[in-house]
């Protein structure tokens, strides 16, 4: 994966990125995928989950717009994904889900930026639960040291903004 990330600062081929994203390395850490609606961040997560079909997934949304039918079209199992329409209680819901330790992958899609302190709390909870927390947001969080991997989706493709332990060219 490091090699892939080193060689591609902008990845146009999402399949290439998904193949490079080894889910094992995402566990116990936060991954942020940011970008405006329509650039393909949800598709990236769905394909990643479809490749790891043995894991149970919790999908939390503050404004529920994800379309489960499309998720099933992509090969996700109906029993694999547990949805939470959290409204403003997205952080509370996330901690409840993480503390249950029932899910290996937790996706949280929110319209507001998370603060540094909140991210640190999430990082600790993810580490304790051994779960991969994937945050879908509109804008990339700045100075977010608790996040391990930051991917920005834009019109030019997929940009790796940060990856702990790997040099980003």
């Amino acid at each position: 994966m490091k090699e892939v990330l080193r060689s591609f600062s902008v990845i146009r081929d999402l399949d290439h990125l998904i193949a490079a994203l080894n889910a094992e390395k995402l566990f116990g850490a936060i991954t942020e995928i940011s970008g405006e609606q329509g650039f393909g961040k949800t598709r990236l997560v769905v394909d990643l989950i479809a490749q790891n079909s043995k894991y149970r997934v919790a999908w939390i949304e503050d404004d529920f717009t994800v379309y489960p039918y499309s998720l099933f079209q992509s090969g996700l199992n109906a029993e694999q994904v547990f949805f939470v329409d959290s409204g403003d209680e997205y952080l509370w819901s996330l901690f409840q889900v993480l503390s249950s330790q029932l899910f290996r992958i937790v996706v949280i899609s929110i319209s507001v930026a998370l603060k540094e302190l909140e991210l640190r709390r999430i990082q600790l909870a993810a580490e304790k639960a051994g779960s991969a927390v994937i945050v879908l947001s509109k804008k990339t969080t700045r100075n977010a040291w608790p996040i391990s991997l930051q991917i920005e989706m834009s019109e030019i493709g997929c940009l790796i903004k940060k990856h702990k332990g790997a040099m980003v060219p």
Partner: protein
Amino acid sequence: MTSEVACIFFFKRDVKLHDFTEACLRFTPRVAVREGEAIFLDMRGCASLNNDINLSRKLAVLLKRFNLNARVVFSTDAPTAFAKAICQCSKEDFPIEAINAYISPFSVDEQESRKISTLLTFLSLLGLNKLNEIFNIDTGALVLRFGKIADKFVRNYNQPKTINWPLFKVSEKIIEQIDDGDSIFDDSCLDSLFFGLKAIIDRAMARLKGRGERASSLRVELGLKKCSSRCWIIKLPFPQGSAFTLMSILRDRMMFDLQRDPLSAGVFRIRVEILESVPGFGVQKDFFTAREEELETWQSLIARLSDKLGADNVFWACSQDRHLPEKAWKRIIGLNQEREVSERFKPITRPTRLLKTPLPLLQVGNRFIAKFTNGKSTTWVFKEVDGPERISGEWWQAVDKAGIKNSHRDYYKVRTQDGRELWIFCLNSSNQSRYFLHGYFD
């Protein structure tokens, strides 16, 4: 080693033992109470579940939960266990006073007590100090002299296992409370309040477990100093048998209310009443899988999330055979609902994001202008268009204002100049075409 009868002998006299006895039903279905003094557990049918050491440890925990002090003694029969608990010696060394335990181990009858004391006086005049010395004299003569009471003793001593155990009736309602004349919990410190509440919930859940039930709704009442009270009625989405899970639900609910509307005075009483319960026997752990534990964790998680967010907002999803995109899936609420999953997916890829309400678009040349509900507007210049895919509206539905539900929709996958992929549909009427944004290929 497993004895046949356990006797729990209480140091403090005249304690109310009914609630604790209910909790003891978890160990054996056959229990008996000697009012204010002792509880007997018949372990004959449950020998493989608990040995003496195990049972005494479990009882110690339960006694602590109910704030009681007692001595647990094991023996082969109820009167011997009771006599052992009082005298703290072996059967051979029982003093003559232990006759009381053999004549009526499960009840205290004043008339009988008077007769026993007369019998004891007589036996001590004969110079008898130990119970087994009675059988050195002619018991037939003893029965003739003292009648029924002596006969009962001789019979019970020789065949203690034949004594009938009285029936124990569980109470109709489970009510637990802490009540003190003075303020026991400061209104400014909620932690101490929840600490007190936990003790009550622990006891209520222990009683429920003994009865083989789980709580499905309960009422929590805080008595305040100024002759007022605060009350919460909590209906649980899944019946709960664990105090830990129930406490976390109660804490969340009460904290939320108390932060918005704090208590007006100190609390002098906490009362918990189980309003509804359902049968729910504990399941034994499977040695090879953690299925039961996992199920409990699932129930606990869903209960907490449903309580806070609403039952409809915590769900699984499954597809269904409907043409309209917004109706092509449905929410599955609860753990045990059957999922009729439709595997017949449309051949055309659907967007990953679907708006709850389609957003009207204004088409100007090769541009779409969208006005969002927050007042902001965006312009998309479209580059490529795939479609149309016609999806028929449900004509049998009531006509809505925009005519979206009933009309035929022509869907287009639109690629914009900035690289986005939108899902737009067009409603064609006789005069004009109206465009709506329905989703994103995000």
